């Protein structure tokens, strides 16, 4: 019998399989309802809400200082950038100009956050594809950044270093020295990442040509961050709508055009080099200035609508605040990068095998509280 005759003889039928809510490849409680025919995926239906805490509703009863604390529980790997987004929105509404010192420190720590997040992503991406060593390499290097954060503000993950009007306190005397030490160390380690994983034959076979997202689809599905830039969609908020000190540093927006899992991988690796370059440009010249502008103890925003976009490690985070002039916002919306990125998953994984879905999800770098909020 020929292959086709065998295929015709074997009858398959479609059935449902739950992937999650507790699945190691989802890195959190994400439930995907897969419709599969044998090993081939026909449909992916995400079911969310397993860690939904209704942060947007909680914001409506909290003061503006309190909202900042809720946001680092969303995308906990970009906690500093999330805090910064809310602070920038409030400062924009109050027309409050923070000092250059604050802007530069915020930018340095944002880039350190991005590095830490990309390191963790690199570790777990290897792990998802069966290469456990990457996990240990990544966590070894990430530890140095967490130590810097701990010394700076007392917390390693949910930092709360930003307040509306500036920073909670000045940087630690060791901050500059330790950041430079880390950059020096990581410059020798990042090529090691390439040697271990990037050129690996199995890794390349698992990622090249898998989960292809075209530029048109990326735009239409509102995809942002490294996922969009892997498809050639120039969406870097730092470049196109600069905030804090990004207008005074020189960096490249990394773009790859293949749109597959491998190009999304390459974007993040290249972005780590860019982040280090941004930090190096700023770290020696942190200007003097106020660490916090005085704000009223009870902040009341003027009546109106305020929107601020920032680039987290996962993409574009938008904060929309609708104020009626009271001490609480009337409505807060967080446009989270993960939620929009997840919307395209079904589209690009139709017809692939389940293992390829895992590889694609790893390259999307989902953080589930960022999707659920």
């Amino acid at each position: 019998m020929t292959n086709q005759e065998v295929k015709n003889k074997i009858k398959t039928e479609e059935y449902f399989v739950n992937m999650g809510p507790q699945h190691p490849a989802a890195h959190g409680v994400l439930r995907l309802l897969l419709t599969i025919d044998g090993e081939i995926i026909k449909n992916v239906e995400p079911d969310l809400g397993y860690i939904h805490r209704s942060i947007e509703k909680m914001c409506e009863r909290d003061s503006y200082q309190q909202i900042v604390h809720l946001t680092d529980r969303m995308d906990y790997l970009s906690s500093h950038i999330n805090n910064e987004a809310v602070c920038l929105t409030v400062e924009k509404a109050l027309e409050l100009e923070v000092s250059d010192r604050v802007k530069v420190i915020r930018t340095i720590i944002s880039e350190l956050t991005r590095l830490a997040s990309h390191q963790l992503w690199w570790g777990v991406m290897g792990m998802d594809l069966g290469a456990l060593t990457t996990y240990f390499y990544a966590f070894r290097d990430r530890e140095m950044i967490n130590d810097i954060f701990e010394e700076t503000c007392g917390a390693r993950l949910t930092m709360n270093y930003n307040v509306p009007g500036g920073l909670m306190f000045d940087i630690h005397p060791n901050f500059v020295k330790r950041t430079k030490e880390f950059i020096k160390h990581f410059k020798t380690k990042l090529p090691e990442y390439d040697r271990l994983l990037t050129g690996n034959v199995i890794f390349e076979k698992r990622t090249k040509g898998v989960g292809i997202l075209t530029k048109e689809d990326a735009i239409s599905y509102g995809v942002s961050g490294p996922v969009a830039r892997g498809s050639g969609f120039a969406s870097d908020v730092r470049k196109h709508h600069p905030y804090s000190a990004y207008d005074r540093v020189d960096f490249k927006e990394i773009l790859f055009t293949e749109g597959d899992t491998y190009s999304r991988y390459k974007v993040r690796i290249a972005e780590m080099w860019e982040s280090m370059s941004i930090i190096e440009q700023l770290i020696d010249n942190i200007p003097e200035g106020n660490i916090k502008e005085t704000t009223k103890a009870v902040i009341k925003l003027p009546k109106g609508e305020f929107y601020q976009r920032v680039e987290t490690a996962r993409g574009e985070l938008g904060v929309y605040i609708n104020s009626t002039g009271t001490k609480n916002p009337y409505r807060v919306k967080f446009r989270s990068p993960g939620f929009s990125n997840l919307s395209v998953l079904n589209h690009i994984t139709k017809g692939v095998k389940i293992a390829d879905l895992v590889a694609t999800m790893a390259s999307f770098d989902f953080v589930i509280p960022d999707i659920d909020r």
Partner: protein
Amino acid sequence: MKNEDLQSIINGFSDNLEFSTEASEFLNVVVPKEQLHNICNQLKSNSSLKFDYAFCITGMDWGKDLGVIYHLESTELKHQIVVKVMVDDRENPVLDSVHDIWQTAEFHELEVYDFFGIKFNKHPKLRRLFLTPDWDGFPLRKDYVDEANMIVK
């Protein structure tokens, strides 16, 4: 493109559009709900507008009206606009889906349905996304009450 130029182009689409730039950095346009799909289609296809990137879709409860706010951007021409649509029927609010214009809307409309109860015509599969299928009420509405789980100050 400047807000004034955007306004003059979009003004040609329909007679019933309200514009404002007060209290917002973007040009705001309020669209009657019957014309939502038509106007959005033109916003995307018009060669001098090209709003192809819906970067934020927000459900909203203005107290009396429910509605949706669309933040749109043109990735090529780099201008932004905010489109608002309101529906005053709180018992059975229905709007047209725009998922065929910006595909990300399919997902964001599920979120709006889940928390505000706004139904979308022609949506491929309207379902509860975050909450359980038997959940009672729509939590982000201003008149939602849940004495057991909400701390009201």
